């Protein structure tokens, strides 16, 4: 995973060296005096961009002109003293809960033994139980459909809007900022709003469909529709992230390349497919990778809108894991933790596969 996203842009982007130099120049100016165009860049653009930069940056690559107090042994002590809180924090609040989760999945917990902590070790029995469960197949399939459909629409709509917003028109910065609202709202707010909009009898969506003569759709209560309903809501929530990251990616493409292509007589459509899209590849790849990892773990939206129902029609691995652990009166933490860990493995594997495919395509 590590080598993938970091080394990839080096191969795909011919102008990498230049970009890096520019980024450093920019970086040194920023804190002292925010430059004029800072106002144009809405927050999460930078936030997401920061993540991108971080991935793209190779280990050991640093801004120039840094002093090197870290070279001496004393310097190393100081450096790690500053890092100590975060290291302890990572161990206590990431590593330890994860360890406990793995431990949960390997033992046969009951409510009693959960409190007393003397549950017998049962190896992979919980995993076998989870995979053999009748819910496993559908939950896995729903996870795949939910993730792929969400990604496809979020990315396409986000990219189209990003291209649209690169033409600077009146109000464009304000409108772009407004587009962030769905991303910033608490998930429970957006999910419950969508629940009410998609209500079979009194929802506004069915009211609009009725005006076009389409009969009421039981968005949330029919097994045929519930998965699509939660997917639609998730796409809505994910568009801003894609828009913002792809927009900053588009901004990074120098305008003279477009001008040159236009001089050569390329039409707008050709310019997009032959020039913009290939140059945007590194950013697209990272947007999709982050989207993949984030969509696989979506839980709130589905749980609040349908609880995974009706009859498991919108259950994904994340909601199933939650239901096993917390959704019933009698919690089954073991299988719940097992499903959760399977989800992590799936996220890792699909992330790696994706990076692999991307790299092969980039080399070809």
């Amino acid at each position, binding site marked *: 995973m590590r080598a993938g996203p970091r080394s990839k842009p080096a191969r795909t982007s011919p102008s990498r060296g230049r970009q890096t130099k520019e980024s450093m120049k920019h970086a040194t100016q920023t*804190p*002292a005096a925010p430059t004029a*165009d800072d106002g144009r860049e809405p927050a999460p653009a930078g936030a997401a961009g920061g993540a991108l930069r971080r991935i793209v940056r190779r280990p050991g690559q640093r801004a120039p002109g840094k*002093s090197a107090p870290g070279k001496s042994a004393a310097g190393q002590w100081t450096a790690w003293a500053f*890092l100590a809180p*975060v290291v302890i924090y990572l161990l206590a609040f990431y590593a330890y809960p994860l360890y406990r989760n793995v431990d949960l999945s390997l033992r046969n917990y009951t409510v009693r033994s959960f409190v007393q902590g003397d549950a017998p070790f049962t190896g992979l029995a919980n995993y076998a139980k989870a995979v053999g469960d009748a819910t496993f197949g559908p939950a896995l399939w729903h996870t795949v459909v939910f993730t792929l459909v969400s990604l496809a629409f979020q990315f396409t709509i986000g990219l189209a809007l990003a291209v649209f917003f690169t033409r600077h028109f009146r109000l464009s910065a304000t409108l772009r*900022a407004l587009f962030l609202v769905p991303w910033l709202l608490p998930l429970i*707010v957006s999910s419950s709003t969508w629940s*009410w909009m998609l209500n079979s009898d009194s929802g506004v969506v069915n009211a609009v469909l009725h005006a076009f003569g389409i009969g009421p759709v039981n968005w949330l209560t029919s097994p045929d529709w519930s998965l699509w309903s939660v997917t639609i809501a998730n796409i809505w929530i994910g568009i801003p992230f894609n828009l913002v990251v792809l927009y900053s990616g588009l901004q990074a493409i120098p305008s003279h390349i477009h001008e040159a292509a236009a001089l050569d007589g390329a039409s707008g459509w050709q310019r997009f497919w032959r020039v913009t899209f290939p140059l945007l590849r590194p950013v697209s790849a990272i947007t999709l990778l982050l989207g993949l990892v984030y969509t696989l*773990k979506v839980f709130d939206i589905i749980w609040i809108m349908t609880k995974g129902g009706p009859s498991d029609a919108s259950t994904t691995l994340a909601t199933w894991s939650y239901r096993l652990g917390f959704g019933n009166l009698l919690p089954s933490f073991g299988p719940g933790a097992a499903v959760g860990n399977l989800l992590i493995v799936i996220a890792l594997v699909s992330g790696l596969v994706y990076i692999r495919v991307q790299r092969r395509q980039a080399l070809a």
Partner: protein
Amino acid sequence: MTANRRTWWHTGLGVVFTALMLFPVYWMINVSFTRDQDMRKSPPDWFPVNGTLEGYRAVLEQQGPYLATSLVVGLGTVALTLVISAPAAFSLARLRPRGGGVLSFLLLVAQMIPGVIMAMGFYAIYLSTGVLNTVPGLILADSTLAVPFAVLIFTTFMSGIPEELLQAARVDGAGALRTFWSIVLPVSRNAVITVSLFAFLWAWSDFVFASTLDQGGDHQPITLGIYHYIGNNNQQWNAIMATAVIASIPATVLLVLAQRYVAAGVTAGAVKD
């Protein structure tokens, strides 16, 4: 003239797109003002013509404690996040710790662990330590949403501080701690504000940790307040949506402030630089 007209055409299209995108938000506000008897009207009222404040009255009467808890949890998360991430970022950006790259990478991976899984691990730990259903427990769990991001933002920002500034401090005999406290932190004000805003927003919006680690708590956050509302049998949708509107206030504040602080704070990390 033609150029001008083209611009206006784009603006018009942009407004239409934005309106479509924000329709659910408008609908939330509209429903929050709708009277109970109009709630199931077909077709629905497109504007709150017979608006009522019933929903908001219900929120003020019932949701006060939830809002207060969310405020405390949010502020606690901000404090904890800042204390842990700022020194770490200073070290990563300026002190060249050996193995710093690995640590940054771990922070990146940490962000990708599904919340449900973290919640289960936390639940097991909290149950045996007695932190379950307490506000500090929730603050600790919520901070895991913000710390990796915060280290990232601070590191990017602090890497950009001009070297001359730090050199001057060194010449004056300031040690690393002094440099951090009296120079780097004050200069990083924008990053501090950015991190605080996002940490607050995420803690305020959290549902997974709240619903697992604070299910039976005396002090529950607003996300659970809304969730209990939805679970009720006689669903008062104007009250639910009114609560949702109020729960959206921090996001709105963030967006308004974003123009001033957040933008300046994070451009250092934007792809376009």
